[in-house]
């Protein structure tokens, strides 16, 4: 079957199988920022936005996306650059494999709660696992990113 979705602001039509996940579709469409980690809905690596909400693309049926808007990190390069600088500046990244999923969830947090406290940051990002950098530096980086957003014109 074919699905038509708005991917990073551009309308795309693609053929999918009945049991394809959104993750499979996005990789097939060249969205290589979307990574598959656990495949058990635990790690947050495959996070993308669907109609503005952060979802785990490994669990969303691709066919369900017909008519919806999906955003990946490829569609948020300006925000990614700013957050990437904060992550690097705080030593919050080593291998970087989890970074795209983390970033997409941070963008969702920034939209939902731009003045999040440290506890709120921790709670919101609890579904993004990182095996190497540790979470304290990530928390610092996210805090710095949110503060930088406040001073944006």
């Amino acid at each position, binding site marked *: *079957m074919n699905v038509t979705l708005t991917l990073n602001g551009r309308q795309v039509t693609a053929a999918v199988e009945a049991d394809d996940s959104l993750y499979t579709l996005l990789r097939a469409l060249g969205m290589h920022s979307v990574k598959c980690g656990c495949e058990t809905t635990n790690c947050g690596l495959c996070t993308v936005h669907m109609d503005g909400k*952060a979802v785990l693309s490994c669990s969303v*049926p691709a066919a369900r996306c017909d008519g919806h808007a999906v955003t990946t990190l490829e569609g948020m390069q300006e925000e990614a650059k700013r957050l990437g600088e904060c992550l690097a500046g705080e030593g919050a990244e080593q291998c970087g494999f989890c970074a795209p999923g983390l970033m997409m*969830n941070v963008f*969702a947090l920034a939209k939902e709660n731009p003045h999040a406290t440290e506890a709120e940051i921790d709670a919101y990002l609890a579904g993004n696992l990182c095996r190497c950098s540790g979470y304290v530096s990530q928390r610092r980086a996210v805090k710095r990113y949110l503060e930088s957003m406040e001073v944006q014109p």
Partner: protein
Amino acid sequence: MARYKDYVAAQSLEEAYALNQKKSAVIVAGNMWLRMCGLNRQMAIDLCRLGLDGIEETQDAFVIGSMTALRALETDAALNAAFGGAFAAALAPIVGTQFRNTATVGGSVYARFGFSDVSALLLALDAQVVCFKRGAVPLSLYQKEPWDRDIITHIRIPKGQRAAVCSVRTSATDIAALVCAAARSQAGMRMVLGARPARAMIVADALAPESGADVFEAIAARTPFGSNLRASEAYRRKVAPVLMARCAQACREVTA
């Protein structure tokens, strides 16, 4: 991973129900657990286009669409104000925000997950499961039944209660080792234990609000518990009275 040959986004409940009468079909809700079950079915029936996502407040109840995401319940101001923040407390520890943006209340209730944080709270609140063909069924009854081929359309939660939830986990975001939910109404206090690790069950009903430790010890002594990777039977039996006492205290505080 689950495998399907056909995918149908049902256009009506009648269509979804008719298609679901075949044993080769399966209803897709949040698709969080289902996708990991290794199912091999002819048809996946998606309820996402039926407008079953939303929380409606009536004079005497909250009526929640079965496709409503857990995150919506967690953040709904009216729902949490009515029940002392119990939904936020019960749902926030589940995996992560992205997970709860997709997992649905209907999927959680239908599956009768033994580890369900959702079912424990709904059971304490005396929720009703509204099915397309059967109509309204008390969750306390639905919870004990085997899986059927009807479709949950809504969950109805009566107002006029105060609720609290406590759980214990070996690590944050993991499945609970034990969940306790309590609701206090004019009839008294209802206590539910989940993740025993079997299906959530009502362990006490119409309990006096001022019940103390001895009452909770007695309840725990007669409640069936089991062992799994997360906790032993003995551990659960020891922890249960503590969680019950905390829930009872919280119910007393929010009522005061």
